[in-house]
């Protein structure tokens, strides 16, 4: 019996044709020509070393408008070139989107975060991508640009299709991501389980965002999302729903956790088995809600502080 693959390609970067346009138009020309978008390169370059491709890349770091980000009362808008390090150092961002801030804080290491973009994490669409569950509970919308002027907004949930697969069609660029900030009586958090404390990928992760009634403890609205327990980050609709209308108690938390664990779709691989991942989801859901409870008491959502 013969065999198709006959060698392991040494893990070195192939020869890369690299374009560095300074305008969006320039980027599109390159994408149309088959070049792959290169942002921070922390996913793409290791991939290219291993697989020998892509060999044509367009670096978007020279495009000034893609570097912008804004945090206003209602929404946060993050451009494609904004690094995770920039975000985490911004106090307004941390206050407006605690779950996303938590998730960014977990990614890799300081050096990595100073290089990697938030949108790169989104476009990589890894099932374990840390920012994805957090962005999901903050109702993120990905801004897709098909050509200069042709823009559409897609919810992150729709954007993520499968491991490494997104709705981006050939020739399209994700120009930014926007998501809602905390409003009054809201809080969010993200937790993950890893074997190592740093530089590790989530074995399971959970983000949640809760809205409380004016009484301060009855849950008025909830969003829960799960990472590394399905082909993409998942929104746990039923689990979230179970909290609504109830105060947070040991029982309501544990019901929510049980539903989340039941509805997720983990796989078994060398990192962990499916049933262990379910167990982690159960624990993490309760932990995340516990964290939200604590935070909600620590500072008032109108920003007055304690």
């Amino acid at each position, binding site marked *: 019996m013969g*065999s198709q693959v*006959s060698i392991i390609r040494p893990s070195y970067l192939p020869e890369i044709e690299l374009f560095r346009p300074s305008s969006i138009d320039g980027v599109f020309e390159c994408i149309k020509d088959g070049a792959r978008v290169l942002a921070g390169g922390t996913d793409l370059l290791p991939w290219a070393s291993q697989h020998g491709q892509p060999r044509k890349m367009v670096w978007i770091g020279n495009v000034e408008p893609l570097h912008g980000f804004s945090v206003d009362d209602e929404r946060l808008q993050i451009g494609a070139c904004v690094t995770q390090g920039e975000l985490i150092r911004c106090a307004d961002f941390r206050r407006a989107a605690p779950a996303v801030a938590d998730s960014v804080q977990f990614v890799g290491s300081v050096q990595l975060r100073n290089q990697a973009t938030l949108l790169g994490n989104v476009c990589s669409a890894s099932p374990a991508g840390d920012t994805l569950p957090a962005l999901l509970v903050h109702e993120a919308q990905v801004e897709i640009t098909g050509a200069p002027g042709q823009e559409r907004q897609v919810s992150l949930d729709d954007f993520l299709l499968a491991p490494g697969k997104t709705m981006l069609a050939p020739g399209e660029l994700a120009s930014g991501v926007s998501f809602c900030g905390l409003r009054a009586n809201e809080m969010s958090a993200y937790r993950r*389980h890893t*074997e190592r404390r740093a*530089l*590790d990928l989530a074995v399971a992760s959970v983000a949640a965002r809760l809205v409380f009634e004016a009484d301060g403890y009855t849950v008025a609205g909830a969003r829960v999302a799960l990472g590394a327990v399905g082909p993409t980050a998942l929104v746990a609709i039923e689990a979230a729903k179970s909290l609504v209308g109830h105060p947070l108690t040991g029982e309501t938390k544990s019901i929510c956790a049980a539903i989340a664990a039941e509805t997720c779709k983990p796989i078994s691989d*060398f990192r962990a088995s499916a049933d262990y991942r379910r167990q982690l989801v159960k624990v993490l859901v309760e932990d995340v809600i516990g964290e939200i409870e604590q935070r909600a008491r620590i500072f008032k959502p109108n920003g007055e502080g304690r």
Partner: protein
Amino acid sequence: MNSRPPLSTASFRERALAGARYAADIIPPDTVLAEIVRSPHTHARVKRIDSRATLAVPGVLAVLTAEDFEGIRLGHLCADEPILSSVARYFGDGIAAVAAKDRQSLMRGIEALRIDYELLPHAITIDDALASPVAIHDFCADNIAEKFQAVRGDWQAINSRVALWVENTFETAAIPHAYLEPRACLVRVDGKRLELVCGSHAPSMMADFYRPIVAGWGSQLEVVTPAIGGSFGAKWEHPSQLVCLLFAQRLQRDVAMVLSRRDDMIAGRTRAAMRIRMRIGATAEGELVAKETTLWCDNGAYSLHGPAVMKAAAIRGDNLYRFSAIKADAQLVYTNNMPSECFRGFGITQSTFALEQLIDELARRLKLDPAKLRLSNTVREGDTAVHGWKIGSCGIADCLDGISNRIDRHRRDNALPRSERYRTGYGLAAFIHCIGNRGYDKRFDRAFVTLRTLPEGGIRISSGEVELGCGTVEVLIKTVARELATNRDQLEVVLGDTATGPHGMGSYASRTSFFVAMAALDACRRFKRAAEQMRVEFGMTKPAEIGELVARARQQQRLGDLEVTGDYQPSGVVVPDETGYGNISAAYTFGAHGCCVQVDTYTGKVTVTQYWAAHDAGTIVNLNETQGQVIGGVIQGLGFALTECASVAESGQLLNPGYLDDRVPTFPDAPPVEVLFTDTYEKKGPAGAKTIGEPPIIPVPACIANAIRDAVGVRVYQLPMTSERLWRAINDDDARSGPKGN
């Protein structure tokens, strides 16, 4: 003869200031680059290699295959590793090699290579290999590379004394050595002379091994050692070096190969995975009587030091306790995994995971304090241990006391409320280790240090041993500066340069500091004798400033008379017999570790919150470096204990060839480590010193396992003790019953 000045070895200070130059830093820009082309199949016979398209790629200079290395095999103990193989025996086995004038032509050439294989059934577990009808090597039909047995004491007599046996089966994982510097080598050509520049921990042994091969090609060989970014036992001979040597010899051009991190991991070496079935028997009062071990060692596809590692694992740790009777039965099994190799602790790290857990379990059963149980059973100065080790200075009692006090105090000061979710526990484990091993090489266990007074001033200290980060440079400078009363600035150290320095066995077996310091002391004695003779001859008055004398010697062109070579061979050591009996080392080191862990019972996650390491390393020559060695060993052991594993798919493919998925601990994972040293003086050692090298990793997995048992009442008998495995054990009622006793 030597066209380049020898490369002086970087000190810690130079390393810290980024002044060290590693092999990859030395490669000149126009050097020919080579790569090994690796098999994507776990077990397959190569039917055909078509290199026509490769050779047609502009810039490609040559292709090598198995035929070019006919009859050449690597392996000190069993020569079974081909340089390039006509049968792929593991995922990543080297099949061909390509050399080209630059990286891009090289990559194009490799991509153009066509290899046809006939796939063979593979065996990646010990059980599969033993059951497999398919031999991994033609000469070994049953896939058992080697067997080992040892029986000591009167097994009839012990039965009446043993009141309690504890027994279990333990498994340890294959893990990569995880040095920071991937393998790299540069071969420089100077006519018929080839100079191999590569970071190896045993450059002279490498030269001994390669010289006859290179002589067969009509060339000579010298080995130069630049700065080494870690080895931990891995950097012995490797096919990449002979590939570069042959390309260089054929092309008459300098050739280099630098493995990428991934390739270094798939085609490197690992710690040998073992399955160890062990039982120990004791009297009702807690006197250790007997130990029986059955051990299977996963050799991987090629033997390297597998046979010796297996034997060490089977018996060496026994020497710590006064057992009356021992049985050991071990086999080394070929599998289609990456070849295993010695790795800090040389197999004892694996077997200590078993032994020290059983001792702990015995203490629990007998309701004895685990430190006291050990204290009343360990060997003492003057003992001849069960396998013939003659125990000299021995600080084990102080180590155990120190750890036991630390644990008691911590327990008292940190009495935490027991939560349902988080549990705290304390663990302790001990070890014994040797300093060098007279049995490693039948010829000798020996070191040399040469002192050469340089025409331009100063003294060059050379040795065939190397600096692996264990402070060899500092030990040499300190010893010579003190003995000759010279300023450190006057001393230069050149290690591992076979053309200009003496022979060295290499930096393994925790021997380096001890051996080089002893040889340096001898060299200094000889130097002083030579200087004294010269002083008398020159008619200079006593006490002559050494500088004056050297100036005079230089004037009269007599510096050569001041060149001396010191020699050290331990006395009273023997090559052990085939059952492993014999005093292999001049002195022995001891230690005990303790730790506090917190276990999250909901997830099985273990956090080591405090660690104590007590060592008897004799007189401490350099406190900072010795502490550093201990802390480094503990952190390395933490990875071995909890997170590291070469994950191999059923297909045989390595799934985690990188540090994202092979989880070597990071700084945030490191617990606070308190290091204690005993006040021991070793008469046979340099200024009372012993060594520290391997020991700090040896007891770590057992120490943590014992703390986990203390915290949650269960054990994970398999390394790494991942969160998932512990979570399963906590939720498995069978696991709660613990090791089976009678």
